[in-house]
């Protein structure tokens, strides 16, 4: 039996269904991310778990108890908001102690717990300051400490890092993962940043327009996307026009050159199929003799230097393909107009 289970969860506002039939079960201690573009219903789903919205259909079971209609204050759920939502009139210590006070803990118990939580987020010396005296990153750490102080059954975070600048964001997400692992707390994390979702999560739930596209581990989502949406939303993807598709032989023609692709059960191509391949699966040069490897010949259309990787746009008979190669210090950059040979494994590409 899963620790938290969402079944057939739907939410309708007026006439628009913003969350449709969401099913998810998470084990105790799991870190789940809701990933998807703006407006796809991530926040709404999370708010139903928190109890701030009531679902129109479906139910939520937490540790064997149906909490679908329970008030948020009785759910024992920790919540972290994008806007931090610290109480401006209270000191850091009072903020963290707030949930313990409503639980009628004794003064000494509260004091101990507050100190423990502050140590967890490394902000011991700020106990008597007010929220406005801290930086955004520090405030969000306090918000995290406040949510965790009550020993919640589940921790919910709604884009907790999007108000922070890039450097703090990177720092703090590792911090969140570390704390989550130490406490072993079941966590649901909402984000539209795929890197964040990949890096943090045990499993990612990709959403689009209110429904679930795929639930799986980060590598599963990336390497075996269940739908075209997932393939395109997570990471970069080439989608090349194809002709003369032969499903039995698993071959097709791309830019007048024959390509072998991988077939998989349950992954039938659509009406107008295209060949999907990730940029990093393309390699430069001829393969070391292997019949399973495809070869495309073309010329460089542009070169983009991105630091760790160099992104090439290659034109193959009027079809443009993006290929990523790793940078090296003594790399001689290909130049626009150069002839180039690309090879890629048949297992790297598929029809969608």
């Amino acid at each position, binding site marked *: 039996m899963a620790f938290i289970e969402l079944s057939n969860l739907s939410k309708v506002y007026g006439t628009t269904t913003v969350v449709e039939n969401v099913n998810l079960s998470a084990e105790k201690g799991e870190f789940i991310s809701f990933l998807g573009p703006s407006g796809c219903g991530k926040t709404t789903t999370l708010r139903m778990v*928190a109890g*701030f919205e009531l679902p129109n259909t479906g139910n939520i079971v937490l540790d064997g108890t149906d909490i679908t209609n329970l008030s948020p*204050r009785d*759910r024992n759920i920790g919540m972290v908001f994008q806007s931090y939502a610290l109480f*401006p009139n209270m000191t850091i210590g009072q903020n963290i102690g*707030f949930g313990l006070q*409503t639980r009628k803990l004794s003064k000494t118990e509260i004091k101990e717990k507050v100190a423990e939580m502050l140590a967890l987020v490394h902000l011991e010396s700020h106990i008597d300051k*007010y929220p406005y005296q801290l930086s955004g990153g520090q405030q969000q750490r306090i918000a995290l400490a406040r949510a965790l102080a009550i020993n919640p059954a589940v921790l919910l975070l709604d884009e907790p890092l999007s108000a922070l600048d890039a450097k703090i964001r990177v720092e703090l997400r590792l911090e969140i993962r570390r704390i989550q692992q130490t406490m072993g707390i079941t966590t649901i994390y909402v984000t539209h940043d795929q890197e964040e979702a990949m890096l943090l999560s045990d499993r990612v739930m990709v959403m689009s327009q209110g429904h679930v596209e795929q639930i799986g581990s980060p590598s599963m989502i990336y390497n075996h996307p269940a739908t075209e949406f997932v393939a395109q939303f997570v990471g970069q993807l080439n989608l090349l026009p194809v002709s003369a598709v032969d499903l039995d032989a698993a071959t097709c023609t791309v830019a007048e050159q024959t390509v072998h692709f991988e077939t998989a059960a349950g992954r039938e191509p659509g009406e107008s199929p295209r060949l999907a391949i990730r940029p990093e699966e393309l390699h430069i040069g001829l393969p070391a003799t292997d019949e399973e490897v495809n070869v495309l010949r073309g010329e460089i259309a542009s070169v983009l230097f991105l630091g760790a990787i160099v992104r090439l746009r290659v034109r193959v008979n009027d079809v443009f393909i993006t290929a990523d190669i790793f940078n090296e210090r003594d790399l001689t950059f290909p130049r626009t107009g150069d002839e180039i040979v690309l090879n890629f494994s048949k297992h790297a590409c598929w029809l969608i």
Partner: protein
Amino acid sequence: MKRGSFWSWLWVAIGGLYFFLPLLSTFDFSLRAKKGILTFVAYENIFKDPQFWSTIRFSLVIALFTVFFSILLVVPTVYWIRLRLPQLRMLVEFISMLSYVIPAIVLVFGLIRVFSGSPFYLTNSYFGTYVLLVAAYVVLTLPFSFRAIDTGMSAIDVRSLTEAAQSLGAGWGTILFRVIFPNLKVAILSSVFLTLATVIGEYTMASFIIGLKSFGPYMSLVGQNKTYESSSITIISFLMTWALMMVIQLFNRTKANNGTHSGGR
């Protein structure tokens, strides 16, 4: 630049004269109770009058009750509108403005008519009239109090704070009194002083519901019967209002400082 500042100063000067000249001449007149010399005797007479003190005390008490009930009414209302019923905002704003549009004299006749009869009979006892007066003042000052509280509430993220408190196990009472009220301190104080300034000198409602017991009607009586004292009491009440306004400014100023740089509290 130079020309621009010349013209703006000129307008400020004209505005200042328009405002201060009548005040100055009133003040000047109030000092001329004795022929040929300047004297504060008109002020002395006012301060020596026991009725001045009793009426002002009475009006102050009424004003404090008004403040108390108006905050108790307005804060939860504004809070709930922001949190749950944003579609009612226009309606409530309109209602709060009504007392601004309807002349006080019309309002007070309506009130007396409705509440003197069955089942209220509020005008049959002193206590009843006090209740009626306080209630009338709560309505009369709604335009200020609603606006002040609403502005204050727009400065805090009511929704997230409420939800954060809820998820930490707080009930509505705790949320209102430990989270919402304390973060509205400045807004509540401005509303308090605006209400005080309005209520203490109010004439129409006070004279019809209570009569000479309160400060407004007393001022008017002095104005009608005593030549020099009518001017001195004008100046006194003006100074009182002004002092209240200064206090509001002071609170707003400290608040602004807290927001911009992270000075201590």
